[in-house]
């Protein structure tokens, strides 16, 4: 086929004129028959070979090309009577209403017409087509109730559309013929005000007299296994149209009674209507003999299963699997556990060479039912053969160099793993396959973060790359270790979490082992080089023996204590979230920079398991008694709460006395609210401090939030002492009854309790009033989530789509697909964030490292 390369300057939209339909047609269809007795397409039938080819080997009679080269060609049928196009009914109604029923002129005097046309031109020039169309609608609407034609003075009758497609002028039914003659009378000069360009769109073309027949290439028939031909829905529908059309012709020519002709005419109208749209209200959809509704033109395009969303915007692949995910802390970070049941279906093509012939033969020998086997053998000519009990022997025999077999996936094959929504590049990473029993994908809990997945029923997709190039690309560019550092801010997206952080914290802070235990612990996490320990081994030593011998690190803990590692030994401080946690693990970051991604990932996975295994020796749990507070602490807290309540009372009193100091830019009420909130927040923080000080070092909750594993002092305060102020949109709760939140309060009560302050803690239990306020904020946050998530998701999608073709070129400019410059220097500083530390490069540090040694 010939391609034309031109810049598009403008596009005109119009209707097909009968002339144009004839001009673009290569066949006039005259018979509903499809094939003759020999099964050959009938000339002038709907499958006429001049309409294009759908059979291999045949040549198109119009253009002479073969299958897939010939784009297909239109035909047409001549309708015995004019037919209304269902999609144009509204336009037809508009036109009938805005023109004279007798003379066909627009219902505007010549002066008005000129004025309106000028204003239209002006609007188009100044505001664009969209506003021009709006104005045209306005004009048409203003014409529909006019009673007299300004040209021939004829009295106008209201035109109605009785759905779906009958027009009435007053009480008189308008036939398509009458409508057509009316439209033919409209002069070219008047069509412009209706938004038409008479060159491309005359009103009478809205009424069909010829019907274009689409090429067979867009309605191919399929051959069933039985050798029978099954035609496309469109062909069926067109067949109906042609058949009824023929009968209508015959009846008209034979001078049949009006009733019969009208009945056939209505039937033809029905078929043409359902041909365009089979889902029109009030028109029963045309059905197959099986009772299934036909899919005609509109249904092909519309909806989720339509051409746009299904075929053009949708992308489907083979060699993919999807199932539920579940955790497996023993699996490596860059592995994915694949159920055996899936391994039987997913295959990798492997080419037979003289070096692997014997090995591949074994796969073929085992066949599709025995793992690890082989499902297909592909001959050098591209013929694909399924391995069955019958074909196995023969295929095994003929297997030779140049053949390709599709063998089952095995351990260490590369796979691409994905969880939707794929919001950042870490949502799709390459993993090595590990075949496991059961039915779920297994992944290391540490890689939950990049996928943003959890195990409450999440499912993920797995894809098997099918070419060497794809596999190499996935292995080099997409494996988990290449994604350790996020391009968002240059921190490590994968790190230790939860128990692993607590474990490393305890290990490096206080734990002591005997020699046997220490060796056992290290061995269990995969450390092979075990140092010569003394009989008593400190946790710090164990941690150090995981690190490389020349590792140097200076950092801070969460509490700003020093952490110093010299020559691979942790000599000062302890390890917590700030060293090894997700998105803040400075130690991990340093390992990555000094030793590269593979070593960093390996060490990280060891540290991860070290934390968990260390906890096994001590046991780690928490219980109710961990949030018990001592009597004297309780008394202090109670006093604090009382004091703050008194403080608030005092504030309210001064406010009522109008003596409250008003804050700049605020009203008296706002100032009061702000001061109350400040007082209540202060007391909660104070309580937190007191509780924090009172906690035993051994307290598991303290360990958890101190190490940065999970939670904060705030959570503990809420459980042990008081939940605190419930806020809606940053303000205390004020909704409810007139002047109060609940009917049991006095009007105008501003006390903490009546405005959503919960002074009890979760352990003691909260009273009904407090519970109610708690539910209010709970409901609000649920609603917020349910409303905001899809909104922000859609916003993000649009942003990502708008930016998708931008890339950083070799000269550090950012350009789009047209090579139009977007940024002259990437990010103004051309720093690759994923190679930076938190978006910047610490030059002082670099210099120190280079010369300071």
């Amino acid at each position, binding site marked *: 086929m010939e391609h034309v390369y031109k810049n598009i300057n403008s596009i005109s939209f119009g209707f097909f004129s009968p002339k144009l339909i004839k001009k673009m047609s290569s066949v006039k269809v005259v018979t509903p028959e499809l094939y003759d007795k020999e099964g050959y397409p009938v000339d002038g039938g709907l499958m006429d070979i001049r309409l294009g080819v759908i059979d291999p080997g045949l040549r198109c009679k119009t253009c002479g090309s073969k299958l897939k080269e010939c784009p297909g060609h239109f035909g047409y049928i001549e309708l015995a009577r004019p037919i209304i196009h269902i999609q144009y009914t509204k336009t037809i109604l508009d036109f009938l209403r805005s023109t004279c029923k007798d003379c066909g002129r627009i219902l505007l005097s010549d002066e008005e017409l000129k004025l309106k046309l000028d204003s239209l031109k002006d609007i188009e020039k100044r505001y664009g087509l969209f506003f021009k169309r709006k104005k045209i609608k306005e004009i048409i609407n203003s014409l529909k109730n006019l009673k007299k034609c300004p040209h021939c003075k004829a009295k106008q009758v209201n035109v109605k559309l009785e759905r779906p497609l009958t027009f009435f002028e007053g009480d008189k039914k308008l036939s398509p013929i009458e409508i057509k003659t009316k439209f033919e009378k409209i002069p070219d000069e008047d069509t412009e005000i209706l938004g038409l360009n008479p060159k491309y769109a005359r009103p009478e073309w809205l009424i069909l007299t010829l019907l274009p027949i689409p090429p067979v290439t867009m309605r191919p028939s399929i051959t069933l296994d039985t050798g029978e031909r099954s035609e496309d829905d469109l062909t069926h529908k067109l067949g109906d149209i042609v058949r009824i059309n023929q009968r209508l012709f015959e009846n008209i020519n034979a001078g049949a009674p009006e009733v019969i002709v009208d009945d056939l005419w209505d039937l033809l109208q029905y078929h043409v209507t359902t041909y365009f749209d089979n889902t029109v209200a009030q028109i029963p959809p045309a059905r197959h003999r099986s009772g299934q509704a036909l899919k005609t033109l509109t249904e092909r395009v519309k909806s989720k299963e339509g051409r746009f969303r299904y075929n053009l915007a949708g992308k489907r692949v083979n060699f993919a699997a999807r199932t539920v995910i579940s955790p497996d802390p023993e699996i490596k970070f860059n592995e994915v556990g694949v159920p055996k049941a899936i391994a039987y279906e997913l295959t990798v093509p492997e080419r037979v060479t003289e070096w692997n012939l014997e090995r591949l033969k074994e796969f073929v020998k085992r066949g599709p039912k025995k793992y690890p086997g082989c499902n297909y053998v592909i001959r050098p000519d591209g013929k694909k053969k399924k391995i069955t009990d019958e074909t196995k022997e023969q295929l095994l025999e003929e297997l030779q160099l140049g053949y390709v077999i599709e063998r089952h996936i095995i351990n260490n094959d590369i796979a691409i793993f994905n969880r939707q929504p794929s919001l950042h590049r870490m949502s799709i990473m390459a993993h090595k396959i590990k075949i496991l029993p059961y039915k779920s994908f297994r992944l290391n809990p540490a890689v939950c973060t990049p996928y943003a997945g959890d195990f409450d029923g999440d499912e993920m997709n797995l894809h098997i790359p099918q070419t060497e190039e794809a596999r190499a690309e996935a292995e080099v560019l997409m494996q988990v270790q290449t994604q350790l550092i996020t391009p968002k801010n240059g921190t490590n997206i994968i790190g230790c979490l939860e128990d692993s952080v607590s474990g490393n914290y305890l290990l490096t802070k206080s734990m002591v082992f005997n020699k046997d235990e220490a060796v056992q612990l290290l061995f269990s996490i995969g450390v092979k080089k075990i140092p010569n320990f003394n009989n008593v081994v400190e946790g710090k030593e164990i941690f150090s023996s995981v690190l490389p011998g020349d590792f140097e690190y200076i950092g801070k803990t969460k509490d700003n204590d020093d952490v110093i590692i010299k020559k691979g030994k942790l000599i000062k401080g302890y390890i917590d979230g700030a060293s090894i946690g997700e998105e803040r693990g400075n130690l991990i970051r340093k390992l990555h920079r000094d030793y590269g991604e593979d070593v960093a990932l390996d060490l990280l996975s060891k540290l991860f398991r070290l934390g968990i295994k260390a906890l096994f020796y001590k046991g780690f749990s928490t219980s109710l008694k961990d949030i018990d507070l001592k009597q004297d602490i309780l008394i202090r807290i109670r006093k604090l709460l009382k004091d703050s309540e008194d403080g608030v009372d005092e504030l309210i009193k001064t406010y009522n006395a109008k003596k409250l100091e008003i804050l700049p830019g605020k009203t008296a009420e706002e100032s009061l609210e702000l001061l109350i909130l400040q007082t209540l927040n202060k007391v909660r923080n104070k309580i937190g401090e007191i509780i924090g000080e009172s906690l035993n070092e051994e307290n598991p909750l303290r360990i958890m939030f101190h190490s940065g594993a999970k939670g904060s002092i705030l959570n503990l305060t809420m459980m042990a002492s008081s939940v605190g102020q419930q806020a809606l949109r940053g303000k205390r709760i004020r909704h409810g009854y007139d002047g109060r939140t609940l009917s049991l309060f006095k009007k105008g009560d501003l006390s903490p309790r009546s405005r959503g302050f919960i002074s009890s803690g979760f352990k003691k239990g909260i009273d009904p009033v407090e519970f109610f306020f708690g539910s209010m904020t709970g409901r609000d946050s649920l609603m917020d989530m349910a409303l905001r998530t899809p909104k922000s998701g859609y916003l993000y999608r649009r942003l990502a789509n708008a930016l998708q073709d931008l890339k950083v070129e070799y*000269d550090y400019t950012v350009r789009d697909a047209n*090579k*139009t*410059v977007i940024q*002259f220097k990437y990010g*103004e500083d051309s*720093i690759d964030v994923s190679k930076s530390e938190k*978006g*910047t490069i610490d030059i002082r540090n670099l210099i120190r490292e280079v010369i300071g040694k």
Partner: protein
Amino acid sequence: MEEIILKHRFLPKHEILSEEEAEKILKKYNVSKRQLPKIRLKDPVIKVIGAKEGDLIKITRKSPTSKESPYYRVVVDE
């Protein structure tokens, strides 16, 4: 229009590049004027500095990470 808008501290410096300077920039980035970002002829700053259609404008922005960052726009009448 009033020159005072040029004095606003949020407005980065706009200057019209000479023919030679413009040529140098086009060469440096290996682009045609059509492939550069645009600025409208009726943009207030363009009116004040009196640039014409087709002129290349250099905008020097302040940047927190690289102190100053130059940006170039072609004046268009759209």
